[in-house]
Every structure is written in C-alpha cells, then in structure tokens.
C-alpha cells in the first residue's frame, strides 16, 4: 500500500459522518478506490491487517452488512470474530458496559458494532480503548453506508460539488439518511428531501436540506435519486395510509424514471420493497446502481478498517509525504 493521502487527521473511531471533515471523507474514498480491485477479487487478498482481530458485534440482525464487513476484513487478512446477540444486554441481566468489558478482555483490535439503539457505538467508544466502527445504530448513523453511496456517486458523476441529490422516503427512522445528508454536504452536493410529512424528522430544515413537496417537480433537476426503504408496518401507526398511496406519491416508477436527466442514477441502500418505494422496472433498469453499491461497500469498509487499524501509530509517520 503506497501513496495513500495521509494529510487528514487520523480517525480514532468511525462513529458517524458528523465526526469527519471533508479531507477525511475524501481520504476514505480515495483509499477505497485503491482497494476496489481487491474487493472485486481482480487482485488477491493483501496481508495488511494480518494478526489483527476484528470483532463484529452485531446486536441487531443484519446479515448483509455483517457479511460485507466480514469480507472486507478477510480481504485485508484480519481475523474476524463474530459476536451476535439479539436483544439488549439488560434482557440477559448484564449491563451494556459489561458486554463491552467482556470484549475488551478478549483482546480485540477493533469492534464493528451494529445496534438497534441509537448511540450504542458512542457508549462503546467510552468503555473501550480500541477503534470502534459504527455499522449502524438505531435511527442515528450508518457511516459506511453513506460513504459507499458517495463513493458510488463519485464513480458515476465525478466530483460531487454542485451535484443535486434527492432523498426520498422515510427519513425519520433512517440512520442512512442522517449519514447520507452529512456526507453529501461535506462533499458540496445539494440535497433535497421528499417525504410524507409524518416521516420527516423534526426540524429537518436544520440539516441544510431543501424540502420539496412534489417528487415529479424535482426529478428533472437531480443527478441522483436516493430511495429509502419504507417499512410496511409503518402504515399501521398512521404514518401513511397504504403502500398503494405511498408508491403513487413517493415511489419511483417507470413514469418518473422518464423524468430524469440523461446521466442521473437511482440508488437504494437495500433491501428494497419492490412495488412500494421502487418499482421492479426501475430496480432492474440500467439507471439503478444498487448492486454496484453492494460491491463498493466491501471496498469502502476495507478502507475504513485499514484507516482505523493499519494507518494508526507508526505507519502514519512512514507514509507521511
């Protein structure tokens, strides 16, 4: 590994995009670019993290994200320890702090944590001395998802400064949306949001986004349509009346696809609800880059692990220009 930009400040953890500055985001994306051939297996696994133990602490089910992190760590030759536990620590009678101290005692070098509880990775970072990588916490942050998304956008659109991204759907319950808006803002993109008013976070205007009432109106102007997953059970809590009404007003279908400019792309963090926020035709069209997002996710997660583990301490000085 050579020629990785080392000017940005090192990251002690990756807890949320709001901890990063633009230079740090760019470094992650540039690093991922270099690692992409390994992620796609055009090049062989590298021994960069040999001897390091990465713990995947998954306190919420997420097979896709866990596998992605698993692959990322293994392509860098790290040892991977999977620690899955459903439900809260308290249900087992121990405190979350006890769980953290148990990991500490096992001597892991990095913890990748997924939790249904907003803020759990921050708490873990207080209890442990090793780098913590947030793999999604509650409705709060999902930084690697946002990073792989902007990485994918950058590969299609080049520099994102001045580009226009519309995020559609359930922002209220979305950790992806929070990270996404922050990452795009750091890279100078313009962000619009369209959603049923019930699924907008309170005071979302404070996020520096533009609220758009009508999806059709904004589509001709955007470079990216970013669709968020809508959970069908939301309609039972009166967030919206039916999936039919949702898809008619906020879903991406063939008619809306035709409103897009020529190089605009359609993205989705997965898993998709075909027929709700995205129609089958859109999902399968050449505008949709959803499977690319998945592949890029491995490279971006490799970059994050590399920067948290290998680029720390002495190696930083070595690589300094």
């Amino acid at each position, binding site marked *: 590994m050579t020629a990785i930009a080392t000017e940005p400040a090192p990251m002690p953890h990756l807890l949320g995009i709001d901890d990063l500055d633009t230079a740090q985001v760019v470094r992650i994306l540039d690093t991922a670019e270099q690692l992409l051939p390994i992620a796609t297996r055009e090049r062989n696994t590298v021994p960069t993290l040999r001897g390091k133990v990465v713990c995947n602490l998954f306190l919420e089910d997420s097979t896709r994200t866990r596998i992605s992190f698993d692959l990322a760590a293994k392509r860098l030759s790290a040892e991977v320890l999977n620690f899955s536990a459903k439900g809260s620590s308290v249900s087992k009678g121990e*405190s979350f702090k006890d769980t953290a101290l148990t990991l500490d005692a096992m001597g892991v070098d990095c913890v990748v944590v997924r939790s249904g509880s*907003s*803020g*759990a990775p921050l*708490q873990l970072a207080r209890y442990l001395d090793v780098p913590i990588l947030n793999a999604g916490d509650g409705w709060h942050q999902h930084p690697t998802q946002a990073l792989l998304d902007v990485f994918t956008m950058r590969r299609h659109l080049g520099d994102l400064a001045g580009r226009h991204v519309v995020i559609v759907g359930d922002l209220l319950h979305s950790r992806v949306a929070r990270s996404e808006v922050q990452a795009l803002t750091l890279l100078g993109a313009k962000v619009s949001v369209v959603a049923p008013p019930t699924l907008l976070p309170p005071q979302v205007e404070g996020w520096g986004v533009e609220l758009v009432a009508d999806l059709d109106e904004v589509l001709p102007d955007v470079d990216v349509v970013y669709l968020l997953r809508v959970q069908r059970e939301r309609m039972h809590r009166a967030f919206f009346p039916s999936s039919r009404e949702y898809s008619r007003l906020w879903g991406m279908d063939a008619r809306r696809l035709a409103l897009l400019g020529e190089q605009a792309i359609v993205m989705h963090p997965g898993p998709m609800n075909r027929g709700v926020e995205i129609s089958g035709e859109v999902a399968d069209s050449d505008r949709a880059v959803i499977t690319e997002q998945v592949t890029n996710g491995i490279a971006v997660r490799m970059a994050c692990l590399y920067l948290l583990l290998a680029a720390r301490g002495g190696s930083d000085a070595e690589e300094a220009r």
Partner: protein
Amino acid sequence: MSIHPPAVTGRGRILLTGGRVLDPASGTDDHLDVAVAEGRIVAVGPDARAVLEGLDETAAGGGDAPATSAGHGGDAPASSARPGRDADIEVVDCTGRWIAPGFVDLHTHLREPGGEAAEDIATGSAAGAAGGYTALCAMANTNPVCDTAAIAELVWRRGREVALVDVFPVGSITRGLEGRELTEIGALNACAAKVDFFSDDGIPLADSLVMRRALQYATAFDVVICNHAEDPDLTAGAQMNEGAMSSVLGLAGWPHEAEEVMLARDLILAGGVGARLHVPHVTTAGAVALIAQAKRSGVRVTAEATPHHLLLTDDLVADYDAVMKVNPPVRTSDDVEAVRAGLADGTLDVVGTDHAPHAPEFKDQEWEHAPCGMLGLETAFAVVNTTMIATGRLDPLTAIARFTTGPAAVRDVGGHGRGIAEGEDANLVVLDPELSWTVDATALHSRARNSPYHGRELTGRPVHTLLRGRFTLRDGQVAAPADHGQRTEHA
C-alpha cells in the same frame, strides 16, 4: 414493637446566631438570632440568648450530638457548630449564612420497599438531610405499590425510625398504578400516615373517565390528585425531548404537546369537579402558560418545577450518557427559560426534586434501554440558588418559599414548611449561599450515583439541618440514622 414510633426530638438548647433569617411564612428577611430548646423554636430576635439562658437547665438534656456517618466526605466534623458552648447552650455561628425553615420535597422516589438496590429510606433520608430537607414525600411507585394503608404506614414508620427527615408517603391514585381501579383513598387518608396526596407518578393516568372519577372522589376528603402530565399515545417509544437534537441523534422524540394535551385535560377535569390538582415536573413553555391561565380562572391547581428543568437542556443528550435520561425529558433553552419565569412569578408554586435513584447497572445500558430519572435532593438548593437567586431571577425569601411554605400549602406536612417563630417545631436549615462546590456523584449520600451534575460547579449548600431541634446535618456531615440503619424499638 410500637406501630407508631414517636418522633425523635432533640433535647439540647441551641442558639443560631448572626444568620439572615428567611421566613416566608411571616415575610421576615432580617438578621436575627434563633433559640431552640427541646425540639422547638423558643425565641427569635435579640432576646433569644436570654430566653435560652433563662430556661430551667434541668429541663434541657445533656446536649444532643449524634454520631456523624462515616464514609461520606472527608474530614471529621469541624467544630464551628459548637464554639461557644456555655451553660450547655450550643452556640452556632451563622454569620454570612441563611436560616430557613427545613425544606419540604413533594416529589421523592425513596424506592423502599422493593427498589433498595437504588435507594432505601435510610439512604434517601440521608440525602434529604444533606440537601436541607426535613420532610420528604415518598412517591408511590414502589414494589409493592403504595396503594394500601399498610404500605403507607410502613413507609411513614420507617421514616420515623431513621429520623433524618419525616417521610410522608404519597398514595397511588389507582391500585398497582394500573390506571383502572381507585385505591382506598379514605383508608389511606385515615391511617397513621394521613395520606392526603395521591399520584401514579411515572405512569400517566391516561383514562379520562378514571381521572375524572379520581378527582371527584378526592373532593370527599379534599385531598390532592397529582397526575404525571403525559399523553402516552404521543410518547410511544419516546427517548428524549422532540426537536432538533432528537432529530440528529436519531432518538424518538417526546413532543411538548404530549405534556400540554394531558395537562389541559387535567385542568379542565379538575376545574369541572372542583378538585385539587397538583402538576408535577412542569417542563414546557406551553404548560406554564396553561397553568397560569387555569389559576386565573380559579382552578384549584398547584404546580412544580424540578431543579433539572431549571438548568439542563437537551443538547446534553449528545453523548448518550443515560444519566441525562429523565421523564419528562430535559428540553430546550426556551423551555428552561419558561420554567424559570414560571417559578419566579409563582405560576409554579414549588420546587420538587423528582429525586429518582437508579442502580448503575441500569443506567449503564444503551440509552433506549436505560431507565428515566436522576438524583436531585442534595443538589436542589444549589441548582435553584445558581440559576434563580444568584442570577437575580428570584429573591432569596421567595426562593425559600418554593422549598417550604409552597409545598406545605399543597399537602399537610405537619410541623414542616411553617414559620420561624416561637412555638414552632425546630425544623430548620442553615445555608451557605456563597459556597461553590463541584458535584461529585460518588460523594453523595444516595445509594445510586445518577447525578446529572457530576463534575459541575454549583453555588450554595446546606451547612446544618435540624429536625425538631436535632442536627441531621452538622457542618456538612449527615448524622447517623437514629436506629443506625436497623429497625429498633422506640420506648
């Protein structure tokens, strides 16, 4: 064993000299000596020493010097409380200090019975004494719930045995806090604990019909109904104040409307049946306005501000330390300002701590799994002094009223929250309004450690507390429980 232990009373003669007496009952704010003998105030004013000296010495016991509790805070007691002991009169120099009636808290979670891992009546009473309190109203959400005279008497009696504060139990409005059937309000009111204040605190009484009937029934005894003002439908899954912070932190929000909708309902229902309503922990600008309006239209309502809602704001949630998790939640600086204004203009009648101890293993959970509540007894005066008095928002005499005569007007707390006058029980606190101190959660007397002020510098602290003429706090040291923590016979 005696079912109704007599109150422990100091036997010595004590002269508090040189202090500024703040007595809201009479409106006195003056430098006066206060003479105490046999548990009562025997004189206030220039002749206090002469009155004490004139008392028949044989009537006075050999002074009263309970052992100080070990393990909390440093040095042995300083000797300033008894520099001028002459003729068995203990002279306490109160120069630069305030002398006020002992504080009354309408809203304390003492956790006993059932929650002793977090607090019990002895540790909570010690925290109360350290905070300048002589009377605590123990909330009903214990296990078992305080919904029968038997539990109420147990709590009341245990307070008497510990004898660091008087404990006045709160009865639950509904059996088991279940929101359906009324507790035997008449029996609770008639028992030794004389319960005249009822609350399902912690759980809102959501059913409007049950609430209306509770208010109606309460009028038969003219007792107070206190409902936790929160519409539970509007707070399903709520974790913190709803607003810009909850939005960024990804936590489900507790909208201010949830408090105001329920409060508006309660005010309308209480006004309709002529019942007495007490509103605990008011936190929003809208709620303060609703209470002010109801008072103007003659609703028999009293209301409470907690210290934490006078100081803390929701940006403190940013690092997800569950010590900041509380119900109702800490809100915005605009809301803090409204609560301060409400306390200053009397819309909010009392400061109530909502002292809510939780064992560390429960607070060391992910934010969403941690319980709500924070410690408050030992920091209440300091927070009010720092936010309201030192800032000139509230004059000292009125501030003291919010801790004393205010709560005593809500429910009957016997000889507490009354005047500093001859013949009254000597329930007093001596405060140092200038003392700046840094809160150390591990040095507090509560068994739990969940103080949101840990590491924060506050100004003002009780120096001495007297319960019926006996020092429960002397020179900042809490006395040992009268029964040394054991249940004992009182002859």
